[in-house]
């Protein structure tokens, strides 16, 4: 009897101490990236995977499943077991906007683990166009110039349309593959205007592109004096965050263990992932986790549904 009690006590002890930090993956973790190879999402995800291997000894196998703003990857992810062995890496837009255009996914289908970084969303034009602000764009349109706006997704295209209507001008849209495609289009003069989520930084520094407006709720690190859209009377915040997700139903223990492991890397000033984020998505990593993150996504989805309704009316 004593033995049984002792064993029970041991068991209780061991499970007791097995709070957040003791979950371990059972074999390799599949990390599905919602965007194509070589983009900002892909680079970040692969760096993080490598550092998780170094710090925790977990084995991560990244795989790109691009398409439809991360929705292609998410549609496959939602059918996997929420045991931490399959994770997705995408952006918040994938969950707070893309489900509107997809019969396959809804924001309720996922467990949101943690964000890693935030965008530096900007409205861009070629410096050679001479435009410095949205007013210049308006003036050019009124002078008869045809405007083409490069967009990488439905959400930003809707955003471009909202801006155009607010300015009382017409823009034509050009859909590109990913953020890099949008930049290429404006550099190659296939478009006059483009969005940039962070990858625009070197081209802006080089003087090739000019930031006309911030599309975040705050000023951009790279253009601290350029106003936000809201400050110009356009109620639009297109900022997004990079996010790690899992299928719904993941236990809090697994969710928090993974979030902690990621946070440990992102908070380490020596980490490669952190250095990359500081450079590309300044000033620093953005970490939002658990139930708070879930609420942000669900609320964001509701707000986006409203934006699209307003646009249709």
């Amino acid at each position, binding site marked *: 009897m004593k033995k049984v009690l002792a064993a029970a006590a041991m068991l209780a002890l061991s499970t007791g101490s097995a709070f957040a930090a003791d979950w371990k993956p059972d074999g390799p973790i599949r990390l599905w990236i919602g965007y194509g*190879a*070589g983009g900002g999402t892909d680079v970040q995800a692969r760096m993080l995977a490598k550092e998780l291997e170094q710090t925790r000894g977990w084995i991560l196998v990244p795989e790109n499943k*691009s398409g439809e703003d991360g929705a*292609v990857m998410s549609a496959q992810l939602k059918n996997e077991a929420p045991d931490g062995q399959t994770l997705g890496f995408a952006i918040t837009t994938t969950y707070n906007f893309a489900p509107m255009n997809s019969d396959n996914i809804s924001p309720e289908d996922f467990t949101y683990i943690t964000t890693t970084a935030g965008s530096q969303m900007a409205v861009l034009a070629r410096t050679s166009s001479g435009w410095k602000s949205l007013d210049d764009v308006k003036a050019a349109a009124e002078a008869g110039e045809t405007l083409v706006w490069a967009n990488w997704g439905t959400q930003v295209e809707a955003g471009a349309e909202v801006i155009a209507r607010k300015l009382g001008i017409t823009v034509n849209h050009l859909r590109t593959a990913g953020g890099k495609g949008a930049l290429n289009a404006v550099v190659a003069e296939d478009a006059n205007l483009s969005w940039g989520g962070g990858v625009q930084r070197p081209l802006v520094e*080089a003087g090739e592109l000019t930031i006309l407006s911030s599309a975040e709720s705050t000023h951009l690190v790279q253009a601290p004096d350029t106003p936000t859209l809201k400050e110009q009377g356009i109620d639009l915040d297109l900022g997004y965050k990079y996010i790690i997700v899992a299928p719904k139903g993941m236990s809090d223990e697994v969710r928090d263990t993974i979030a902690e492991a990621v946070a440990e890397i992102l908070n380490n000033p020596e980490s490669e992932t952190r250095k990359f984020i500081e450079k590309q998505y300044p000033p620093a990593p953005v970490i939002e986790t658990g139930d708070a993150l879930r609420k942000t996504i669900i609320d964001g989805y509701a707000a986006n549904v409203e934006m699209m309704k307003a646009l249709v009316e």
Partner: protein
Amino acid sequence: MELAFQYIGLGIHSVFFDADGQFWLMPVLMVLTGIISGIFFGAIPGLSGPFALALALPVLTSVFGYSNEALLPVLGCLVGLMKGATVGGAVPAILFNTPGTPDAFLTTADGYPMAQKGQARKAIQTSHFASVMGDSFSDIVLFVAAPVFAVAVERVLDLPEKSALIILSLCFMAAVVGNAPLKGLLGGLLGMLLSLVGTTLSGNGVRLTLGLDGLGSGVPLTSAVLGVLVLSEVLISVEDMSRARKARESLPQTPEMGPPLTWAERLRMMPAILRSASIGTVIGALPGIGTTTAATLSYDTAKRLSKKPDEFGKGTPEGVVATEAANSAVSGANLIPVMSLGIPGNFAAVFLILAVETIGDFSFGPSVFKFTEIKEIDGYGMIMNKDLVMAFGLFTLMVMGNIFNWTFGGFVMRFLVHMARIPKDIVMPLILLVSLTAAYVQDGGYRGLGTALVFAVIGYLIRRLQVSTLPFVIGFLLAPALEQLIRGAFTASGGDALFLLKSPIAVIMLGLSGFLIVRMVLQGRQKAASQS
């Protein structure tokens, strides 16, 4: 001009130093590996350059990964394979009258008689010399022409014109490849149809996935190309072998090697090499025509201009020079449309494009050759057009490849005598194993395997119908780019239904495409009429 030299310097630097500034020899070693294995591959009858590239790409990505740093080593190896295979193909052609690669078919005409006359060594060295010279010549043309062409294209061509240009190249390719242009065109259309599976840029969800979530990102590229090109060839070979099982012939004895080629003889070949290399370069720069046409044209020209035309076909070095310089010159020039427009002209180019699509954020096209000013920015680092550095890095690797081909190539060729003796029934199962493993690893397990098998059957049927698989593969690869351009041109025009017909350049290109299609139909009818 100074900026151009700065970029060239950075390109060369990127080959020898990795992103952290550490000295590394990996890209150069991979070029060497590529050259040597390419020569071996080329020398085995039944295996050609594209075969080697198809098998190497998945192996290379699993070794080097998908980051930008993987690009130079992987591209280096592929370029080496491409260059090596062209050289190696000539050896069995000369020694045993069996061309190692289709490019070397005409080399048998004079190379084999030369060997029979006891001049095997001289024939092999002539072929090696002409081949490397032709290759180097066309590389130089590439280095100059690609940037100039790209800058011109970017300045002149807008979205509608770029769309029209892709349509024109697809029609042109179908018209010149193989002897059944209409079937080629249909093959190209089939390839385009299959590439429509998966994601669109419309934002309205995926299409044609048959409800399979796994097809949401489209048909996995590498597995599909492995299936069409490599597995279908294995199927054909197995079938042929089972039919001809009893008639397996043994290869003849290695002929007398004879005296080596002298430097004076090499010098005398130079004018002929230049002429043949020019022909090869011009043909190579046009998508779809390929090495066989270049070699034939060059051979006929050499024969016509020769003082002793009767000796052609009886073992004259002039004949070997004409075919080898021309077919090798195709490989460099073929990269002109690839690098400046992203349009592949032959199978080797297809694999280079596949490599840059799967690895890193580099892609071919006019924007590669934009000379952005190089600046140092506080807290960020250097600002420059990294793609241009990459392009010059690739050029550097090609030069390295030519140097290796010059030096080690000739040495390796001496060992090839035995390669042509490896029987197909050993090679084919090995290839099958490697390519199925590659498809499984590269494209997410059974999804990749399934794709490879389905595309193997498609490739088998296309080949059995006596149609080239090239238009199919290129249609498959180019359709997404074409769709993106056409959609873009349409929406950017504000939804104008006549968006493709608003610019004279686009109208001319579409008119030419229409003319080519009409011509193909008429030719097809004539052929049918003459047969009945």
